[in-house]
């Protein structure tokens, strides 16, 4: 699989979605409004209380927009993992085993999701707006760090999708795991410091979702709070790579199992 080939897939995906242009645009519009509502709710809260645990509105906006943006990045490539259990059950996965391309990459190409435009637009706007508002000591370094954060956050969401989807190889009923994933994502929409010891530990050392947006944001904003040191934010890319590698391991294990056990 080469980049030009992948882009060709994306182009054809775009073409096939455009067959249903109306429904697509309507969906984008609807999603955008839904996310806007989330931001509005937060705005109202902060307006009343000035801060959430010391986080002001632009800072909250930064935190949430990173969460949504990185989720959109992961989902653009891997949302199909949420339906993967049906593909395995129906035997449709065999199609990917008989192609010359690596199955996971082929899946991503074939099922590339261009429907996250609303996420990118709404969250992207708030992201840029909040950065402008915050006027932190912007250096090339900071900007570079932000880009790395976004990519590593995307990788972590991707890792979650792959890891959870791979469960379909072992247990047929794996869809409920994604509900759990959604719930945990909800936690990271707010500064980790509002939670007690258990949650903070869970999201830092157990299921390290706090590395997606919380620790990196806290580092940028020079926050001093929480149980664990904020410089953990610098470890985010490494955590992301480790998680992604683990997820790929899980996937490989799942494929091997599928090949010996059938389906």
């Amino acid at each position: 699989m080469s980049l030009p080939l992948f882009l060709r897939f994306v182009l054809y995906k775009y073409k096939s979605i455009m067959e249903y242009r109306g429904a697509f645009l309507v969906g984008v519009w609807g999603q955008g409004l839904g996310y806007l509502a989330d931001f509005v709710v937060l705005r109202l809260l902060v307006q009343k209380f000035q801060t959430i645990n010391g986080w002001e509105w632009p800072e909250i906006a930064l935190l949430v927009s990173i969460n949504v943006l990185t989720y959109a990045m992961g989902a653009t490539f891997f949302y199909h993992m949420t339906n993967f259990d049906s593909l395995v059950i129906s035997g449709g996965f065999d199609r990917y085993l008989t192609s010359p391309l690596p199955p996971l990459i082929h899946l991503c190409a074939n099922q590339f999701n261009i429907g996250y435009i609303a996420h990118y637009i709404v969250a992207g706007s708030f992201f840029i707006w909040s950065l402008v508002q915050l006027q932190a000591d912007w250096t090339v370094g900071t900007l570079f760090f932000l880009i790395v954060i976004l990519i590593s956050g995307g990788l972590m969401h991707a890792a979650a999708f792959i890891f959870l989807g791979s469960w379909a190889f072992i247990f047929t009923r794996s869809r409920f795991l994604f509900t759990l994933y959604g719930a945990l994502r909800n936690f990271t929409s707010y500064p980790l410091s509002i939670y007690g010891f258990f949650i903070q530990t869970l999201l830092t050392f157990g299921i390290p979702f706090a590395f997606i947006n919380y620790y990196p944001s806290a580092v940028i904003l020079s926050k001093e709070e929480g149980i664990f040191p904020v410089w953990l934010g610098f470890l985010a890319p490494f955590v992301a790579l480790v998680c992604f590698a683990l997820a790929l391991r899980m996937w490989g294990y799942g494929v091997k199992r599928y090949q010996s056990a059938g389906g």
Partner: protein
Amino acid sequence: MMAYFSQAMKSFSRSMAYRAEVWIQIGGNILFLFIQISIWKALLGHSMTNGVGIQEMVTYSILNTSLSIILMTHVYNQVDESLRTGGILMHLVKPLRYPLFLFADEAGKNMYSLLFELIPTLLVGALLFGLQPISESDHIIPFALSVIIAMFISFGIGYLIALIAFWFMTTFALRWTVEGLIKVFSGSLIPLWFFPPVWIDVAHMLPFKFLGFVPAAIYMGKMSSTEIYENLAIGLFWIVLLYGLGSLLWWKALRRLAIQGG
């Protein structure tokens, strides 16, 4: 009459088949509740704002999270599906009134959610976080009434959105828009008394406040008697309005269906 009742029973037992997923739903609700309470703890600390302290916000959150379980209308899914597959024709051929059929179906689902999702969530939430008892025993009946009004309004809104599908084949955008409005103006995440001035006025003009705020406020004794009666009356007004619109649109939809042929 029996036909509608049996439909309610049918959708009730269909929901029963998805037993295992209920635990996950309840778990999800509790997690969601937990997040909300954590936020309020961070915001309020040990002080009071607008005469409301953390214990009361806990109660408010538990009530709203629990109520929202039976205020999630599924009507438009049903109708969308029916329209797409053409199954709607089957319904129109039977000697049933489709709107009532939908209502019965929703009632069945709600009955199930009430018993197996709402009550457990409420109990677990109360045990884990602490639920205050109702402020005054006089408020029990108004509270119950407000919940019933909320359910009718929820169905009414869903029903109107569903009808739009007869013209646009999809309810997606409208659905997300309304859900967005509900997210903000139902007060389920933020009580109306924390809203900025203009927003409060807007919120009172919309029917969404009944989908969480009003019942919770009555329960917690945050409304004077006059306010309670006022709100109940306005609630009834909204029901009449929504169902009036609903009937009109339904009539028009039938005509459109007859012309279009499905």
